[in-house]
């Protein structure tokens, strides 16, 4: 008999903590690269959330073989494969924008950029 009490919900709670740290980095930090790193952390945590829910205790990777009976759920894996690609695409684009911002504002701190913009208005 397999016991489902551990890690039970604990797994999800840590994942939520990870998500919130990511979100916090995005909201609280002014540095644009840091924001994008935060976005990455946030997204990876969401991926972990999906993969966690796909796991079956005692299951194996969903590659069919004769000797195995229990497989973990492959569908979230597929969704997250797609989401990872979307994530890296967003990161690449965001970083390209950061490079351009550095070139035209000479800073990548959002508060300094806001100051410059307000002064030029």
């Amino acid at each position: 008999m397999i016991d489902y009490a551990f890690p039970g919900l604990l797994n999800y709670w840590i994942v939520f903590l990870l998500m919130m740290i990511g979100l916090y980095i995005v909201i609280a930090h002014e540095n644009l690269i840091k924001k994008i790193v935060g976005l990455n952390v946030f997204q990876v945590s969401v991926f972990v959330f999906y993969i966690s829910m796909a796991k079956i205790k005692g299951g194996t990777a969903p590659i069919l073989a004769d000797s195995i009976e229990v497989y973990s759920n492959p569908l979230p894996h597929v969704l997250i494969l797609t989401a990872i690609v979307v994530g890296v695409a967003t990161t690449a684009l965001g970083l390209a924008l950061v490079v351009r911002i550095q070139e035209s504002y000479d800073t990548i701190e959002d508060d300094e950029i806001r100051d410059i913009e307000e002064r030029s208005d």
Partner: protein
Amino acid sequence: MNIEIITSDALNVMTLLFMAVTAIAIARIRNLFAVVMLSGIYSLMGATLYVILDAVDVAFTEAAVGAGASTVLMIGTLALTSANENATPNKQTIKALIACTLIGFALVYASFDMPLFGDPNAPIHNHVVPRYLNDSMAEIGLPNVVTSILASYRGYDTMGEAFVIFTAAVGVIALIGRGRREKSANENMADANNVMKRKIVLRVVSKLLIPFILLFGLYVQWHGDFGPGGGFQAGVIFGAAFILYGIIYGLGTLRKALPAWLTRWLMALGVLLYACTGVVSLIKGASFLDYNVLASTPTGGQHIGILLVEFGVGMTVFASIVTIFCAFAGRAAADVNKVSAKQRSAGHD
């Protein structure tokens, strides 16, 4: 109680805790190089966790993309911007902390009605998915269920994904790509300035490794039906080989081996190959992306279809990754030239 299951659960929780520590470090450290490396490590630990949680394909992708490609791009960006972050004003910190705590509590509140971790009776394991696990062998004929779903059952999503990375690559060209004339001049100068080029150890080792990396990329591409892997991972690995070449031998040399027009064509042809596979099924009178009609037997058709679309994805991802890298590296080269030109003129004064 099964000892293996307990070990895997303990590992799972421990990896998650390590990830939490890394994330906190990312939030607190202000040296951006350290932050970027930590974010790579965070992704890598995520990949480890996916292996523990049986998601080998995802782990493969996360390691190649999250820990590899993204980190390279971020370091490229750092080379062009600054390495340190200013201190954050306290007011905003508190606001953000409150917002995140509230959302976090909402999520914890939500968790109390979730099925427990690893419970096989959860709805997601009993609706929709059983068909993939039980019938995909008969309907598609591949042992790797993830590939079956990715390329066939939900092939349309994967096409969207290929277009997303294509969009990003084109977008990066539009943002930081350079005109043709400007480019060659910059790259040649960058090569002359390239310090790495003279380092014999790096050159020998990379020459030794690159063929094997390419070979491995091909293996991942064609073996994706049977084991973890597929077009996306293969594309990133292939791209990594060329990026390594570019880092060590200089951007100009890379562009000689792989000119800009070639990557642009590959990028476009890859997504077109994917979509055209779908159009062929349309013309043969079936639904879009219905591979059954591509050969005389349904599973044979599925095989051909999946092979083609995976190849398309591989092509696009490979070309896109190289394009994005070259755009960043080209900017950096131009930047180095600007700085050295400035220094030279300052020296004359």
